[in-house]
Structures are given as C-alpha cells and as structure tokens.
C-alpha cells in the first residue's frame, strides 16, 4: 500500500473510475491489506473485519467518483473505512451509554509519569493489540483512527460525530482504558495526583 506521503495511484484510480476491472483489481490488491488491518483493529472480530473490508471496497465502487484527486487517496480511503466501521458499530448498538459518560469522567490530572513509563516499556505490541480488543468501541475506534491511519482531529470528530474539542478527551480516555486493560487494574489509568 502506498503509505501517506508516497505517490498516489492517480492513473490506477482514473482507470478504476472508468470501470476498468484490472485497475480495480490493482487498487484492491494494493489497499485491501491495510484496510483489513484497520478494520481488524476497529471491529470486535476477525469475521467482522473481513465482512467490513469487502463492504468497504463494494462501497468504494460507488464512491470513487466523489474522490478529490488533489487530496491523499490513502487518507480518503481511511476516512471511508472509518465511517463504515463506526456505522457498523453504531448499528449494532454496541456503543454504550457509558461511553458518553466517559467524556464527563476523564481525570485530567497527572498520572504518575514513572509508573506510566514503566508500563509502556514493559508491554509488547502483541499485549497492546490484545488490550485494544478489550476497549469500548469508541475508544478503540478513536485510537485506530489516530494512531493507525493518522487521521486528523477534524476527521476523527467528523467520523465519530463529536465536537472537535472533545476528540482529545476521547483519545485521552481511550488511553486510560488501554492502560487499565494493560495493567489489569484501574489504579494507573485513574491517574493519581502528584
């Protein structure tokens, strides 16, 4: 897949827009792994991610005409994927009311920096991925959008349907949830005041 910043597949996109099946195949071949991984991180199960990847590419056929060629295709594709995944989660109603409450219960004090540092250094990528699976839908979605697909705060706000000013709160709360999941207890994530 073309990472952000590398050359966009303009020619392939143009041909795909014109209905060239080979170009579609090329786009799918290039981008499907990244989109699948995005969905795998954002959705609860592997089957969900597989279904979502297929649906996103089906949707893409109809949406490709809306893509502005002057912008990053990768970013646009991630936006489509994020919207689809969030819609999926929303339709399933697995977004809990608790998550809305979360916005109000974010502790904004210092966590213990040394404990946080220790926690981060001790955890492997695999442990982080497992911990991610335990997070609430909104928290997981926010982290994936920000740290996997490098979406801006504006894009995240748009996808999640929250005010831009709350994106930081959502991300911070997500990190706290992640720490709780990593640590196994809420002590660190609760953020003891220094």
């Amino acid at each position, binding site marked *: 897949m073309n990472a952000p910043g590398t050359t966009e597949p303009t020619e392939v996109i143009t041909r795909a827009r014109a209905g060239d099946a080979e170009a579609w195949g090329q786009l*799918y071949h290039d981008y499907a792994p990244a989109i699948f991984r995005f969905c795998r991180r954002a959705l609860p199960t592997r089957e969900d991610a597989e*279904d979502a990847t297929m649906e996103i590419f*089906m949707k893409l056929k109809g949406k490709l005409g809306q893509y502005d060629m002057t912008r990053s295709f990768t970013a646009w594709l991630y936006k489509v994927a994020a919207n689809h995944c969030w819609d999926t989660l929303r339709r399933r109603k697995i977004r809990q009311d608790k998550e809305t409450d979360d916005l109000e219960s974010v502790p904004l004090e210092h966590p213990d*920096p040394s404990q946080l*540092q220790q926690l981060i250094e001790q955890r492997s990528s695999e442990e982080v991925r497992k911990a991610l699976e335990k997070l609430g839908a909104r928290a997981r979605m926010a982290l994936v959008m920000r*740290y*996997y697909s490098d979406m801006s705060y504006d894009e995240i706000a748009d996808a999640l349907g929250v005010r831009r000013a*709350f994106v930081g709160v959502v991300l*911070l709360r997500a990190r706290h949830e992640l720490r709780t999941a990593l640590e196994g207890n809420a002590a660190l994530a609760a953020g003891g005041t220094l």
Partner: protein
Amino acid sequence: MSGTPEEKMKHLDEMTCLLYIERQLDRARGLEVSAHTEECNTCRTLLWALERESRLLTRAMLEEEEPLPSRLEQFQERARKSMQWIWGLVFGLAATGAYALYTGYIQPWQQQLEQAGFGGSNLLNLLIFQGAFWKGWQSMTTLLEVLAMLTLAGLGAVVFRRRIRRGSALALVFAGLCAALAMPAPAAATEFRKGDSVRVEKDETIKGDAYLTGARVRVEGTIDGDLIVFCQSLEMNGHVTGDVISFSQSARISGQVDGNVRGANNNMTVTGTIGKNVMTFEETFTLDPNAKIGGSLTIFAANLGVEGSVGRDALLHFAHGSLAGKIAGEVRAKGDTLNISSTAVINGPVHFEGNKAPDVSSSAKLASPVEFKQMEKKHDYREGRYYVWQVIWAAAFILFGLVLFTLTPQFSQDAVKSAEQYGASAGLGVLVFFGVPIAAIVACVTVVGLFIGISTFFVWYASLYFAQIIVGAVVGQWLMGRTSELWPLIGRMAVGLIIVRLCTTIPQAGGWIKFAVMLWGMGAISLAVYRRFQPVVAPGMPSAPFTPPMPPNTRVGGLPA
C-alpha cells in the same frame, strides 16, 4: 510530595500534555508548555511517556501479525465473476417464477373470470372484482392505491437515501399520508337495522344501501341500493336495485335483484331473478328451475345444483355438481363428480376437470361434447420438472426476502433474533397461526370490522411466506455464523432458504416441515412486532456537553474549547 521548587510548581494536566505532543495547542499555549517542561522534570517525563505510548500504539497497530484472509484475497475475483452472476441468476429465476405464476395461475383465472362476466382488465380489478363483491372493497381500492404510493415513496427513499435528508423522507411520507387522507371516502350506507328479526315490509322502500343484521332477515319491500346482510336466515322476496351481499347460514332469494349477488353462506337457494352475476362460497347452492341469472355464475360449493337459467358463462368449483338447467355460455367446472341431466341445455363448450368422468345424459343438449380432464396430482417427486420449479420458487423466495430485508432491515433483523428464541417463537406461532384467521373471521362478522378482518387475513397470509424467509435466515446463521450486518444476513438468508426449501420437498415429511417452519417464523415475526410496540425506557442522557477544565486561554487546535 515535599516542598522542592519543582514540587511547588503547578503541574500540567495530562490533557494539555497530550494536546501538546499531538500538536493541537495554539502557538502561545504550546510555548508555555514548552517553557514549563524545561524546568519541570515530572511534566517532561509525562510528555516523554505519552510520546512513547503513541509510538507503541502505532507500532502495535501497524504490525502485520496475520496475513490477508484467503476470503479477501479471492474477494475481488469472486465479486467480479461470481456474485453478480449469482444475483443475476436469482433475479432471472425470480422473474421466470413471476412470469410462470402469472401465466400458470393468474392469467387462466383472469381469463376464466373474464369469461364468467367479471371482465377484469388488470390484476387489481380482478382482485377487487370491480368493487361488486363488497362495497368495502371500494375503500380497499383506495387503501391499495395508498399502499402502492407509499411503497413507491419508500422505494424512492431507499434508492435516493443518500441524496435526501431524513426530514425530506419524512415530509415525503407525510405528504403521501395527507394525499391518502384527502382521497374521497366511499359513499356511506343510508340504513342500518339490527335485531333478532329484521324486516323490510312489502310497502316499504329504502332509498340507498341497507345493512341488516339479525337472526332472521326478511325483505319483502324495495331497497333502492345495495343490500348487505349478516344473519342466520335470509329471505329476500322483495326487490333490490343494487347488489345483494349476504353472509348467512341460510339464504333464499326469491325476489328480484337487479345487480349482483355475492356472499358466503351455508346454503343458498335462488328461485327469483338476478339481473347480473352471482358469485358465492357455499356448502350447498341451488338454482331452482324458475330462477334466472342474467349474467355469469361463479360458485365454490360442496354441493351444487343448477336447474334454472344462466345468461352467460359458469365457473364452477364443487365436490358434487349437477347441471339440469340452461346455461347460455361456456361452462368451466372442477370437482369430484359432475352430472349433466337430460333437461340441461348448454350453449357453450363444457370443460370439466375432475376425479371421475362426468355422467352426461344422452338427452342433454350440449353445444359440444364435454371436454374431460382427469385431475392431476399436484406433486410428482419423480419428475425433473418439479425440481426445476422448486429452484424457480426458491429464487422467487430469495428475491422476496431480499426486498423485505432491504425495505425493513431493522424489523427483519429483529424477527431473525426473535426466531432464535425457539420456544417463544413456536408457541406464539401456534397462537397466531390459528388465532389470527379466527379473529379475522370474527372481525368480518361486523360491518365495521369487515375491512379490518380481510386486511388482517391478507397480512396473515403474506406472513406465511415471510416466516419461511426468517427461518431461512436463522438456518443460514447456524451454518455461516451470526451477523448483524444487512447484506451478510441476506446472504445467510439465501443459503438458509435454499436448505429450508430443500427440506420441504422431502416426500411425506416435507409438508410437516413447511408447517413447522411457518409456525416458527410466524411466531418470530409476531414476537418482533410485539417488541416493537413495547414502550422503551429511554437511557439516561447526559445533561449537557462536558467542557474539559482547560487552563484559562487554552485553545484546542485553534478552536475555543
């Protein structure tokens, strides 16, 4: 914390640190944070830890720990070659099914009914019998039109859902409803009579329609309109200028009816004159030698005796039939036995499909010999054609399910979920399967409830098919795993439905399986409907958006916090 200079400092909160490393603070605040962390070791460590946390997250998420599933690797090829082909096949087969349904069932019936004097030019006319069967059908026409309009509006909303706002869709629906309400209401009846014994005296004339209900109804006078009767015993000796619609145990029409006679009775005997057509459902129907029907005769009866004269064609379904009178047109009959006696005069051809060859008197005056066809058994499992039709019907079912699932995705998913409560669904299914038709019949007994009763029956009948689709979806989920997505669910429904249809073709057991599926599915639908109308306790809503306690003058990404 003790009293070192650093510890006395006011530390940055974690939110500010996060926004700082994410470059979301405005320049001024960013410089403040930067200056603070020059001096504050704790906050600097926190920034560093948060930065590390970001990198850990990115690394963990970007690592490719599992390859692209083979399903996805093959998806593009499959989507291009296979899926479109399958859906094309399904649509093609469904279209064939619809055409076969029309040419095999609807068109012959339409032709027969046209020959029998109903002259329906389209299916809608055929269904409502040109408004003659029951006055309420006129309002049903309106309802059908409204439903058609709303269905079209709904389809339009589905097709253009991405281009219109929800408000526009609502406005569309409301406009449709308003249009429906603005439609002219059917003419109301002018006379209602109810009692143990209801009479219209000989010298009495009722101007307009008469609705009569009672144990015994006797009409000796004149009704200048339609006569609608619900009773135990009807005697119509007078004159009705419109139609007679009768629901009774015993009906005798000895007078004159200028219009049509329709109804469902236990016994009906006609000795008088009927200007137009007769269409009834009876246990026993007798047309006396002196009786005259100006138009056609359409009868569904166990025992049928026609000794009088019929001005046009006759369409007859019976167990035992006897023709001894004069029929000016064609006769199409279907039943167990048919006797055509010596006094019979039939000017048109006679077609009889029955279990036994008709007993035709040599003295009977027929335009041509009776064309007899042995009644065929419906299902012959040994014929390949039977299985071809099963495939076509399965495709038609899938298409029906596709339309239903697309138009009512949430309700369909609710019904599928309800079907997974096996006990409740089956129990409720038994109740609804037997209870609703009974309730519909009870509703029909009253004039007010007639429309509701017949509509309920139609809904009940349609749900027999929908039930199979719901069960198909459940079976599909058993095989392919649960899903709450619409299109995967439709896929599972298609697979499950094929299996269900296959099971229903098993000789002997198939019928019972189909019955069980209908009970189960119908219960699930009922359960979903029941739940839909249950009041939902709204979850506690947050009182107001929370504003994070940012330090004064803090701006997040240039926007006021």
